[in-house]
């Protein structure tokens, strides 16, 4: 059964998504992945819409850990790219996330 989840990072998680690991402080990519992305990706054909614009900026370490970390957690890049969609005024942010998914798959 398909499910659709909308995640607004700035409103639902933190306005400052900057770090990589939970032990490094609040607003980490690891915590975001565990609290929001992994639950949203459960089910047969999930659709996850991620709204990126309501934060005060991003650290690449957060983005890499949150989205590249999904590949390391066992998700295939093709599945992630068909399940995740992004809304942002900054197209470079979406390109960056996709690059982390691709790079994590190569490692």
């Amino acid at each position, binding site marked *: 059964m398909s499910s659709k989840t909308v995640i607004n990072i700035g409103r639902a998680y933190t306005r*400052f998504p900057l770090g*990589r690991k939970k032990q490094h402080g609040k607003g980490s990519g690891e915590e975001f992945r565990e609290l929001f992305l992994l639950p949203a990706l459960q089910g047969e054909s999930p659709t996850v819409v991620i709204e990126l614009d309501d934060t005060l*900026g991003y*650290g690449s370490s957060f983005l890499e850990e949150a989205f590249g970390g999904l590949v390391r957690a066992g998700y295939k890049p093709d599945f992630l790219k068909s399940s995740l969609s992004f809304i942002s005024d900054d*197209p470079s942010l979406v390109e960056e996330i996709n690059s982390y998914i691709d790079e994590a798959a190569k490692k």
Partner: protein
Amino acid sequence: MIELAASWFPYVAKGISVLIAWLLVVAGWAVANDLAAQRDRRRAELEKVDRLRDGLAVLEGEAAAHHTQGFDDERWRMLTRRLKHISVECAHFERLGIISRDWRSLNLEMRKAVTDANYSAGSYAVEQLYGQRMSDIYHAIDAFRAFLFKAHEAKFAKTDSVSDTLKRIVRAG
């Protein structure tokens, strides 16, 4: 009949010459007006690109301060805001046709260089001003700056000829 035509001819010829002169004045005004509008638009675009370059200089200073002077929560947040502003401005400039979409990959590399590591209180370590991390940051910012210089030069060098302007005015109706 011939006599009648001959008596009208000077008036018709004068009328045509007045009409041609009037058309030339109108066309000249339209061309001058259009060129002035273009020049103003280009100047405004150049100023925007210049402001963005100034923003990069500030970013470089803030990035250096963040990575080499110890973790400071306010500075760290300011730096993140600066990076976001640069991205949003570039996206806006791309939509306006001021810069090409090539900014995206350069911006990605720059954000990555500044924020991919050493970017949380818990993982922070002071870096050398001319160490590897700072060299990567300078390199990424320089590449972005070079891109903006090229965008600036392309805008600066671009001037339409009078015939191009006339064609555009005619096309615009």
